């Protein structure tokens, strides 16, 4: 186990005359035993960052420290870390046993000890019965386990995982995700996990580093990035369905700020801890998650009027696509499926879950006061149902 510090990492790739900036001034520190995810759209620099930690790429500028030791110039084989690759990179000409034990063999471990350790890690991921098979005889899920077992075999300080679940089908992915989390809780290695799937990042990690275009957007616990997104990018990247973003004008009074959207307005108390940025801008973007919008039948004064354009039932919820005076909005409604396209509805935006973002910089200005862990989705399911019944 070890902690990792990335300091001022800068990396670009040159192909022909084109230069592509991959990672720009990244600072990150990962505590001992922590499980962190690097997440972002493809091309955001997350994989490059992982490969630089592994030593497979070298940063153009900046330094990488493991347990306080500068490893920037240390070759990958001497960094004391393991990696699980996206396509697993299991050697097809070796049995499962040879694959798992390869690192031990290189390290010069005695044969008997190798066998013992291989059995140990194989038991950990439940593939003890497959040790004599060749990779071609394994299913995708089994291969993934072999790759994980091999990464654990040398008992490295740090384990890097590069989208290890992306080659599995949906059901297996959910199951393996849970097992991976259990595994981490049991063995407690420092783990860095790269994924483009925000759900994986949210469910697995102690902290999530969200990257975009090579720049770190936010590095915080899952609940924080979900409920206090640092900027517009994080707000729209994390969470599904995506957060609604609506342009609004702000009118600042003595004690309150009025947020005005065409057809709807609300007043927020000024000066509280909810305000993060300058409080004197006259325009902002309102961010509201679909599940924080309450949908009422018919037109009700004071609420945002809208028309249903599409309903997508998901089983327990319905995703409503709405048109509010030309703006497309999405709302998530629990346990109600009786909407039809064309239905006139009116919307309530939960002020406790409202976010404001700066129009130019995209930085968060205001986060609603609702604090975390109170299962916000359920908290609002009640009134919605009540409305539906009424």
């Amino acid at each position, binding site marked *: 186990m070890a902690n990792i510090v990335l300091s001022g990492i800068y990396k670009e790739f040159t192909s022909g005359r084109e230069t592509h900036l991959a990672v720009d001034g990244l600072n990150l520190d990962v505590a001992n035993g922590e499980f962190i995810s690097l997440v972002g759209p493809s091309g955001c620099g997350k994989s490059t960052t992982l490969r630089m930690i592994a*030593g497979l790429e070298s940063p153009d500028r900046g330094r990488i420290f493991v347990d306080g030791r500068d490893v920037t110039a240390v070759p990958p084989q001497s960094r004391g870390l393991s990696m699980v690759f996206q396509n697993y*990179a299991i050697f097809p000409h070796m049995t499962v046993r040879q694959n798992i034990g390869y690192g031990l063999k290189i390290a010069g471990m005695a044969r008997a000890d190798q066998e013992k350790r291989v059995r140990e890690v194989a038991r950990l991921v439940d593939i003890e019965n497959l040790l004599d098979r060749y990779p071609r005889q394994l299913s995708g899920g089994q291969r993934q386990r072999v790759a994980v077992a*091999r990464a654990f075999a*040398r008992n490295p300080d740090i384990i890097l995982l590069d989208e290890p679940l992306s080659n599995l089908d949906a059901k297996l992915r959910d199951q393996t995700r849970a097992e991976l989390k259990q595994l981490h809780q049991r063995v407690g290695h420092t783990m860095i996990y790269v994924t483009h799937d925000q759900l994986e990042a949210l469910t697995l990690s102690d902290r999530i580093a969200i990257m975009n275009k090579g720049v770190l957007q936010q590095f915080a616990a899952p609940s924080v990035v979900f409920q206090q997104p640092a900027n517009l990018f994080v707000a729209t990247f994390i969470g599904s369905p995506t957060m609604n973003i609506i342009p609004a004008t702000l009118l600042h009074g003595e004690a309150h700020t009025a947020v005005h959207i065409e057809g709807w307005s609300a007043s927020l108390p000024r000066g509280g801890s909810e305000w993060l940025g300058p409080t004197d801008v006259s325009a902002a973007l309102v961010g509201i998650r679909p599940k924080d919008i309450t949908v009422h039948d018919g037109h009700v004064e004071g609420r945002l009027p809208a028309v249903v354009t599409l309903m997508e039932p998901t089983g327990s919820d319905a995703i409503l696509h709405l048109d509010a005076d030309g703006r497309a909005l999405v709302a998530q409604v629990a346990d109600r499926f009786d909407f039809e396209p064309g239905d006139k509805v009116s919307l309530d935006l939960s002020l406790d879950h409202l976010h404001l973002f700066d129009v130019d910089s995209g930085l968060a200005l205001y986060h609603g006061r609702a604090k975390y862990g109170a299962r916000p989705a359920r908290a609002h399911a009640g009134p919605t149902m009540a409305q539906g019944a009424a």
Partner: protein
Amino acid sequence: MATTRFLSKGLNYLALAAVCLFFMFPMYWMLKGSLETAPELLSAHLLPGSISSEAFRELIGQASFRQYFFNSATVAIASTIVSTTCAVLAGYGLARFKFPGKAAMSRGVLFCYMFPSLALSIPLFNIFYSIRLGNTLFGLMLTHVTLSLPFGIWLMWQYFQTIPSAFRENAALLGAGRFRTFLEVELPLARSGLIAVAIFAFALSWEEYEFAFVLITSEASKTLPIGMTQFVTRDYVVWNMIMAAGITMAVPAFLLISFLQKYLVAGFTSGGLKG
């Protein structure tokens, strides 16, 4: 409609039969000749008069034939080993490293490869004599290596490129150095390419004529294609033996290359394979 369809199908099969006949007939003639006695063969009937192993027995009884066969096998096996080793190393070097002049070098190899063997063997004759490689199987072996080497390099180059870099990177992370990664991870993954290169190297050396014809003048170092064609000028009566020698030459090459049909295509289209 149905009739024309039937007719065109029939014509197709007729053409197919003609094509097969054309490409098979010389092989048939060789086989037939090798199984006949000399007088029977001279009468040139389409079907063999009788079948006898006389020609083969007589051929094997000749010390010079055994010598040629042994020389051919020695040269072919040695050049296979050398050519495959060089091709694997160079193919790996080209696939895994960036260095200045790489593109120029890959073209250069192809240029060299197109050199007509005969135009090379004429100056080589002098060079080999001055460095005491004249009339040696070792010298001949070296020339045979160059027949398959460019194609071998090209094929291994392609092969190593198709191995995902994750294997190499993973081996590095597990602690393996570069040469160990090459030997224990990447080479086994490129095994089928390696086998293809080896078989081509063998087949090309086995049938090589021009270098051997110019460079080897001593009876003790002659290879099968050279020794065999000399039967013709020596004595026309032994045609059945010559055909038998042709069969003994054709069979190994035949068996080996038929394993490799799919690589033939790659070799031909890349221009890396002489024909």
